[in-house]
Each structure stands twice: as structure tokens, then as C-alpha cells.
């Protein structure tokens, strides 16, 4: 246990551990390429890099979740082997311009892998984070709940006309890309001119389109090195042309999708979740099972921590910079802007697969608490 951190952190740590979990030490130095691959280049300006004696590029951990998932990949003997780990230690993030804080700070966290009951695991992790904050006298916290899996589910099941259905489906789990394609689909983005070649390609069957593109490349002496194949270029050329000449999405469909993406209700949780169900219904998607799962989560939270949801709201898209949360996600903050959350957590079922290049799979959910922010700091 880190001794620098004072009684509030010790109280939070004790509360976190009370929810169960084996105490583990996680790696501090990580392969830089792995961290950047998982967390994205947006974190690069925040990372501290180091070189190994063999020339390997390493970085200091910027959170506890990636090292926990890496540890799991290296130690679990089978997929979805159930483990619960509590961990504490420094993480290292360069301050943003104008941000007045130390570049290293302590986090404490709980990471659970392989739980068969996702809902119960979600609730356990939420409660662990909540109880840790309460133990540290962090009261009257604002709670933001999100669901990183909601939009991909709705778009996959929605009855949307092509090419927009497939175009939106391909980017449903990517916030910025989803907004970009929706702007194209709804006709609010400027339309682009297409060339005669693109128009021709768009009207050909895929095989003929590919051979036409191959002829063009040969005639113009153009190269396609690396991983990107002729089929990728031809298919995308056709898809891009089809989008350029397609009718915009019907205004009511575009409006419904926009409302879902922007759903950020500060009202009651139940009303927000019901609104999701209603909006999804307009797209032909039945969200009753999803709604039921959230009802179970919220009831269980309410049961064990009355008051935890007193200042809670729901957003459809996770705003977290680390974009690996793909299910329930939450953060707690003393300020409703959520600029400096004291706790963050969520479900990241795909992360173990990404780390292991698909050789290992595990359901996963976790949370971290930042004691340095206790007391509104």
C-alpha cells in the first residue's frame, strides 16, 4: 500500500477490497505499441516513453486497466477464467497544457474477468467504486451512466435503407466516425462530386468492379503495396460513390439517430432509458431486454446503496477518452461537468481479445478511483 496517500485513500482502498478480489501488482512498463494500439494516438501526448536495452519502445502505464488485461492474457489458463483483482499504484500521464497537477498519481482499482453474470458483475464494480468514494467522505457525487454497446446494437438491428444502413453499421462503435457518416446520411455534410470512374464502379457487380479497378491501376502504372488489397479499394470506391449519389436518409430516421447519439438527459434515469426504448422503437428495434437489464442493474444499486443514483443521469454514448468501454460505463464527479471524475469504470469485453490478437476472450469489467481528486481537488 502506498504510504504517500493519507487516510482517505486508505479508507477507500479498504472499501474497495471489501467487495472482494485478490491483491495484485501490475506491470508499470508496457510495450508502447500495445498501449497506442489499444488506447489510440490521442493518449500519446500524455504518455512517458522509455527504451529497453534491446531497443524495444516502452511506456509507463497511463491507467490500470490495460496492464490488468495484459496480466490476464498472460496468466489465465482458459477463456473467461473468473478472477477478481484489486490493484493500486501510480499511473503516469503528462498534464495537458495549462493543467496544474503532478504527472504521476495513484489510482486504486478493481478489475473482474470472466464473470458469467454480466449484470451482477457490473453492479459489483459500480458499488465497489461508490463505496470506496463514500469511505473517503466523497458525498453528493454526480453520477454519469452510459452504454457503449447501445448504438452498435440499435444500428445493427435497425431497418435502415442501404447504403446508409451498412455505412452506419460499419462505424457504429466509433463515435466520431458515426457522427461523420450520419452527417452524410442526413444530407447535412457537403456532398462531393464523383468521377466518371466512380459512377461506373458503383453500377458494376463487385467482381467486375474489382477487375475494372485492376485495369485502371495497371494502365496508370499505380501501385498497391502493403495490406490494402485491390478489393478494399474497389469496394470502398463503389461504397463511396453509392453514398454520394444515394438519397439522404429519411428526415425522421436521421432525426431519431441524431437524438440517440446526442441523448444526454439530466432528468430521471428511468425517463432517459425509456426514451432510448422509444427512439429505438421508431427504428424498428425492440430494446425491452436491454431496458430490463438496466432496470435490474439500477434496482440492485438502489437496493445496496440508496442515494447512489440521487444525482445520476444517462448518456447514450460513452464520453470516455479511452474508448474501450463497450457496455455499461460510469463516472463519479463532484462537479456536474465531469471534467475531473474521482472514479471511472465500465465493461470492456473486447479488450482481452484485442490484446491477445483474438487468441483469448474474456468478459471484463472494472473501475479505478483517483484519490488525488478527493476533496474536490
Amino acid at each position, binding site marked *: 500500500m502506498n504510504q504517500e496517500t493519507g487516510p482517505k485513500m486508505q479508507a477507500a482502498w479498504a472499501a474497495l477490497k471489501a467487495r472482494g478480489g485478490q491483491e495484485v501488482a501490475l506491470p508499470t512498463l508496457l510495450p508502447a505499441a500495445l498501449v497506442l494500439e489499444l488506447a489510440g*494516438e490521442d493518449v500519446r501526448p500524455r504518455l512517458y516513453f522509455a527504451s529497453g536495452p534491446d531497443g524495444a519502445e516502452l511506456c509507463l502505464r497511463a491507467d490500470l486497466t490495460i496492464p490488468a488485461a495484459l496480466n490476464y492474457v498472460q496468466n489465465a489458463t482458459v477463456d473467461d477464467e473468473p478472477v477478481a483483482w484489486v490493484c493500486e499504484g501510480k499511473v503516469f500521464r503528462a498534464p495537458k497544457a495549462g493543467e496544474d497537477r503532478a504527472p504521476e498519481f495513484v489510482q486504486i482499482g478493481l478489475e473482474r474477468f470472466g464473470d458469467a453474470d454480466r449484470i451482477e458483475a457490473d453492479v459489483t464494480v459500480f458499488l465497489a467504486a461508490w463505496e470506496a468514494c463514500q469511505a473517503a467522505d466523497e458525498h453528493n457525487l454526480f453520477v454519469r451512466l452510459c452504454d457503449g454497446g447501445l448504438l452498435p446494437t440499435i444500428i445493427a438491428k435497425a431497418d435502415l435503407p442501404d447504403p446508409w444502413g451498412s455505412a452506419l453499421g460499419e462505424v457504429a462503435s466509433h463515435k466520431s466516425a458515426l457522427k*461523420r457518416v450520419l452527417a452524410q446520411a442526413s444530407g447535412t455534410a457537403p456532398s462531393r462530386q464523383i468521377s466518371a470512374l466512380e459512377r461506373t464502379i458503383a453500377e458494376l457487380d463487385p467482381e467486375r468492379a474489382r477487375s475494372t479497378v485492376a485495369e485502371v491501376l495497371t494502365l496508370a502504372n*499505380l501501385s498497391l503495396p502493403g*495490406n490494402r488489397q485491390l478489393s*478494399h479499394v474497389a469496394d*470502398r470506391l463503389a461504397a*463511396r460513390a453509392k453514398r454520394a449519389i444515394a438519397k439522404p436518409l429519411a428526415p425522421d430516421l436521421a432525426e431519431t439517430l441524431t437524438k440517440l447519439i446526442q441523448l444526454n438527459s439530466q432528468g430521471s434515469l428511468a425517463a432517459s432509458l425509456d426514451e432510448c426504448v422509444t427512439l429505438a422503437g421508431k427504428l424498428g428495434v425492440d430494446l425491452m431486454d436491454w431496458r430490463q437489464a438496466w432496470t435490474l442493474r439500477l434496482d440492485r444499486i438502489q437496493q445496496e446503496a440508496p442515494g447512489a443514483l440521487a444525482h445520476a443521469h444517462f448518456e447514450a454514448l460513452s464520453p470516455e477518452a479511452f474508448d474501450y468501454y463497450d457496455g455499461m460505463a460510469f463516472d463519479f464527479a463532484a462537479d456536474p461537468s465531469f471534467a475531473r471524475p474521482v472514479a471511472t469504470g465500465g465493461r470492456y469485453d473486447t479488450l482481452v481479445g484485442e490484446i491477445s490478437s483474438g487468441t483469448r476472450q474474456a468478459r471484463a469489467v472494472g473501475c479505478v478511483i483517483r484519490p488525488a481528486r478527493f476533496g474536490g481537488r
Partner: protein
Amino acid sequence: MASLILALPSKGRLKEQCEAWLAKKGLVLRQTGGERGYSATLDGFDDIQIRLASASEIGKALLAGDIHLGITGEDIVREAASDVDARLSIEARLGFGRADVVVAVPNGWIDVETMADLAEVATDMRRQTGRRFRIATKFTRLTAQFMRDHHVADHRIVDSAGATEGAPAAGIAEAIVDITTSGATLTANALKILDDGVILKSESCLMRSKLADWTEATNTTAAQLFKRLGLDRL
């Protein structure tokens, strides 16, 4: 820092161009310690200490405030720090050492012309392969910022120490960010620059460090030098 320190490139074409530029203004640079020496004098300015250094060292020294003035490429300082304008000012663009920092992709990518196309391809690639789109470059800071500005989310920067233009053919990266003057090297490597893929139009600049130890004496010397150079700004 008692006297004003001016750092100039120590070798190569950039050094020759600096000397020629100074000569055009009637200023003669005399290298002390022979051709391999790293100090020099400027005729008529005994109170200026001339240091000869590599372009990257000059950039670092300007950003750190170790020297008052220096000539180096804008690309070098913009890559070295995020708060460049708080640390130094560009006093003159010198018209030589011109080079653009650009985003280039294989010329066979006939479906990719703009940064918006690149963003889509990056997203497609991650969805199809589970891996991020790779961009080879030594300009990691400039590249990361440019990609953020153009909403290219699903990419990863691969640090490239040299021969960046060969990275796509070698399978090290899908695209590159590199410096180019005429574009000939990119063309020779079957690459094309995206329509809106110019990150920075760089050239050699006379720069003034804001963090250096500026005194009345060094300010006066700088003003005299700038007057002689036709840059009466101080």
C-alpha cells in the same frame, strides 16, 4: 549569458545558404577553428557570440532559452514542442530550406484523396483487421495533432528514423508523413500527397527565443543586428 548568442547551422547546404543570406546583407561570417570549428564571428558585431550547431540542436536551444537567436527550420521547432509560440517568435522567413511536411499514401489508393477518406479507411481497416491504420513518420507530434484535427481516430504512429518513404512498400505502415521539397522522392516511391494533406509549409527562419536571458544590452545588440538585416522589429 552576457553577450547575445546567435546559433547558425554548422554544415551542409543550410550553412551555405545562411552564409549567402548574411553576405547579401553585407555581413561576413568567419568561422574560428577552421572549417570544423563550432564557433564563428560576425564582422561588425563583436558583441555577438556565434555558435554553429545542427538544425535540431538550434531548435532545442531556442525552445529552452539557451540562446537568444537562431536560424533553423520551422518544422524542427514545431515538432519539438507543443507550445512553440509561447517559447519563441519567428522574426523572418528566409526563403530557403523550404520543405513541406505532408501526408502521403500509395498512389494506387484511387479511393483516397482527402483526409476525410483517410479517416474512413483507417476506421475500415480497424474494423476489418482489428488493428489500427499505421502511419510512419519522424514527425510524431505534428502528425498526432493533424490527425486529431482531421478526426482520424483509428490510426497508430510508427516512429521512423529514416527512409520513411519506403515504409508502405516494406509493409511497415500504410501511409507516411514526411518532408518533401519537390515531391520527386514520393513519386519515385509510388506515393501521392493527399489534397488537404499538407501539415506545414516549412522553411528556414530566424527565430528569437522568448525564454532567453534578455537584457538591455542583448536587446540593443539584437536591434542593431535586425536593422542591419532589414528587420527593424525590435
